[in-house]
């Protein structure tokens, strides 16, 4: 069983769409289950290094180690959940195609092992994201998609430049080969390449000051798509950037700079959310903030902190899927996503879910987010970065301010619209909330997985 099947299966399913265009929800579910099975089979043989077409160092490389397994697992899990969620919707070829290519692209990003492959999946994921933004085919959607494409093209150019420079100087495109030879380059060239990668990936990873486009895109895209963006897209690019970084082994100053960038992202995003008036944008700012924390934690280059970062990524994915999908229900019921709409619906179930989501993102026990934050803080304190812990805690207060202000609107729901949620959706949303509670109370196994993934992650790329 080849690693390629994880990418080939979804693409095949997409190409064969015309044959079952009326039964796409079932196909989507079967596909997710198939991918989960394949991943399970492959998981026991990690680390796997696969060369396609040519032997090293010319060929196209795919890796699967504990770190990429973690991310692939999260993405396939989300894919499965989304397939279950859309089971009762009517068969929509456009949505199916774009969504499946999106997941294929994300999986490809996580599995790629050479620059060529990386660039291709970079673009595939981006293109499917552009299409997802415009899915509703309204003016806002197209405006957002256009804006996204402009910024995305800038990112592509930076990445292309970086790839070209690497090849011109090193002569190889495969990550193991590059990792071995990067340190031998003159310092200025190293810096330029790192800078190009930082800007290119910074845009896609949504780090300040390269993330000024994100809030608009989240506003333009359909609310449920925002859940996918938040949970999958930014995380895939985050993984890839740090995979590259850990492989290239830069100087400690670089790590410190990246940590500061992550902290700045967190601060700016949370402050912006404080006076937001549009719920989708507020959730977008929250995502940017959490990405900043994850970026900060990954840049610390410390095993405990990185395992905390991975746990954070996993729990944040669950929490944001929950929040955005719940928000989509509110949007449909009240017709608005302004902050005022948050007080205008009546549904104890959704109130509970929003509470769980907010508390988890804030990192408040007994939810999963707390375990993530605690692991990160524990590691940072042990590594001597105590002032960063304080800075993150201080900014978290800002986060708490706007989340709890939203919750206080829930306590007072006069002239509210009762919302009816189909039982299937209730079960699925409830399972996410339950997941957050269970991971918070019994994090043992999950933390163990994250620790192993972190070890593999920090070790760089598997060598031939």
């Amino acid at each position, binding site marked *: 069983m080849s690693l390629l099947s994880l990418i080939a299966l979804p693409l095949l399913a997409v190409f064969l769409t015309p044959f079952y265009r009326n039964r796409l929800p079932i196909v989507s579910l079967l596909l997710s289950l198939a991918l989960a099975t394949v991943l399970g089979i492959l998981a026991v043989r990690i680390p796997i290094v696969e060369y396609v077409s040519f032997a090293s160092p010319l060929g196209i490389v795919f890796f699967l180690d504990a770190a990429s397994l973690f991310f692939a697992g999260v993405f396939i899990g989300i894919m499965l959940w989304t397939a279950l969620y859309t089971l009762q919707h009517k068969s929509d070829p456009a949505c199916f195609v774009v969504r499946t290519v999106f997941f294929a692209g994300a999986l490809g990003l996580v599995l790629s092992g050479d620059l060529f492959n990386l660039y291709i999946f970079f673009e595939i994921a981006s293109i499917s994201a552009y299409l997802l933004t415009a899915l509703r085919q309204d003016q806002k959607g197209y405006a957002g998609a*256009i804006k996204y494409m*402009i*910024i995305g093209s*800038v990112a592509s150019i*930076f990445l292309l430049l970086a790839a070209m420079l690497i090849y011109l100087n090193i002569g190889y495109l495969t990550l193991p080969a590059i990792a071995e030879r990067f340190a031998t380059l003159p310092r*200025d060239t190293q810096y*330029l390449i790192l*800078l*190009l990668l*930082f*800007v290119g990936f910074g*845009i896609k990873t949504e780090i300040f*000051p*390269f993330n*000024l*486009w*994100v*809030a*608009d895109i989240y506003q333009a895209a359909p609310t449920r798509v925002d859940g996918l963006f938040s949970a999958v897209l930014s995380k895939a690019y985050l993984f890839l950037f740090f995979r590259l970084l850990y492989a290239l082994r830069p100087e400690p100053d670089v790590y410190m700079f990246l940590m500061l960038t992550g902290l700045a992202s967190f601060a*700016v995003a949370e*402050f*912006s*959310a*404080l*006076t*937001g008036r549009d719920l989708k*944008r507020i959730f977008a*700012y929250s995502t940017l903030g959490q990405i900043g924390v994850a970026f900060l934690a990954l840049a610390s280059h410390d095993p405990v902190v990185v395992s905390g970062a991975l746990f954070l990524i996993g729990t944040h994915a669950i929490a944001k899927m929950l929040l955005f999908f719940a928000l989509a229900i509110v949007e449909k019921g009240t017709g608005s996503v302004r902050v005022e709409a948050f007080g205008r619906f009546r549904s104890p179930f959704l109130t509970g879910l929003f509470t769980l989501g907010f*508390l988890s993102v*804030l990192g*408040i*026990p*007994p939810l999963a987010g*707390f375990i993530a934050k*605690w692991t990160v*803080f*524990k590691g*940072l*304190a*042990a590594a001597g970065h*105590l002032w960063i*812990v*304080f800075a993150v*805690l*201080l900014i*978290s*207060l*800002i986060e*708490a*301010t706007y989340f*709890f*202000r939203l*919750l*206080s*609107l829930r*306590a*007072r729901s006069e002239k509210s619209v009762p919302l009816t949620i189909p039982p299937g959706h209730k079960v699925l949303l409830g399972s996410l909330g339950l997941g957050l509670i269970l991971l918070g*109370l*019994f*994090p043992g196994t999950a933390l163990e997985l994250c620790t192993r993934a972190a070890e593999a992650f920090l070790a760089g790329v598997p060598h031939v």
Partner: protein
Amino acid sequence: MFSFAFTPLGHLFFGLSVLVFGSLVWVEHPRKDRMLYALLLMSLGVLFYAADLVTLFVGWEIMGWSSYFLIARRADTPTLQKYIVFNLAGAFALLGAIALIDASCGSIAYERIDFAAVPARETTFIVILGLVAIFIKSGIVPFHYWVVDAYSRSDDLFSAILSAILSKAGIFLFIVLFFRLITAPHLPASLLGLTAWLGVITSIIATFKAIDQDEAKRLLAYSSIAQIGYILTVLSVVGSLSLEAALYHTVVHTLVKLLLFVNIAAIIRVTGEGAFSRLGGQMERHRLNFVLMVLGIIALAGIPLLGGFNSKFLLYTALLEAHQGFLLAAVMFSSAGAFLYSYKLVYGIYLGQPTQAALSPTPAIPSGYYLPQLLGAGILIGLGIAPGAVVPPLNTVLVSVGAAPIAPLGTFTLGDTFAAFNGGVIWIAFGAIFLAILSVYFLLKNRSVAPKDRYDISYSGEIPPPGANLHYGYGMGRELSRIGGIGWILRHHAHSFWGRIETLAHDISILLRRLYAISAQNSAWLIIAAFTILLYLEVY
């Protein structure tokens, strides 16, 4: 991941919690909050029985947010925001301290934490963070901003829980941190000295603000702050007797506030009013409630006969033994003020003449309201008669946190070699005098003339017009603002300080938010500019 230990300290605090919750169950409460109350009680169990700092933190946080939702039943958004932001700030400070402890001592389990090897600088940091958490939770100035609104604007019965139990969480944390974990040689003396003074300054400020209040619940809220201030002051002295005094006062204060808040809740329930200017003269209609409140304020003010005196006595003794004369003087000054607000509480509601608003007939108070009050009053009376009975159990708590036990002087005697008193003797003496005066009163009673109606006060040389407000005693305390220092305290509010911070954050937010709405092209400009700047920085 989480570990628990059933220690005497935990038993004491959790026992008090169960007492408070259990007695309130008998009073009416909305059914839909049962889950939240259960969650809150469970979180208190986790907090008090934790055997490691992370478990303690989990309990602390769950307590915080479950209280939020209970307060949210009635409170408005600004109150809620103040509550949660301050409490989370304290919680985050605590988390920072725990992370630092983990890094310095290598563990978060109580058993394995040893501060011997930790450098003084780190210990100081940990202490400061822990103190911030304690100050915020206990409402020490300047962090008291959230307390009064949260206590006064939540459901009446939940205010009892807030004041009786949740305010003690800070005390508990202090004992865990500064008696159990960081033992004597490593404690920074200057910080503890600062804490002692902050505690008593808070008491003074809160006491005078309490006298100035018109709403009963707000008065009690300030009173709670003041009482917790006393406890923190005496705890900061750090010794066996001071811990004993603090624990005793914790027990007494819990019972007193339970009694008083439920009493007020009953009055609000039947009259619909909670302000002194709209009450008055309720003594005739609600006699049992009146008697219970009198018992409550006797204990609150620390007058001999009830348990309130016991704890005050221990407190003063502890301060004297530690040679803290100035602190003692300040505490006494604050206690003197406490007499004033205690009297205002009972006068404004029960004595004097009823105001127009309180004239209409009121139903009888539902009997459920009496259970918590009788329980509290009963225990307080018991403590008054047999003050020394509590000493052996408190000693087990002392030993469990590593302090030396206090020598018990017998069931009816309380104190130590320095000074002691016998509760039984006081009761006998008081009883005799009381009976004597009572019999004289009954003998003379028939000689007085009963007035025909409430406007018949010609014997005071006044003939008020109909409709005049006769309950002017509720304005008691207004004249205090003419005294220099006290007037300054009363005129200034924490709002002006914290409000400025809030406005600052708001303005920064609006500024930064504009960045996120710029066009794609301008974003591209910014990206290219950032790239160029970073490139330039390295090249040169």
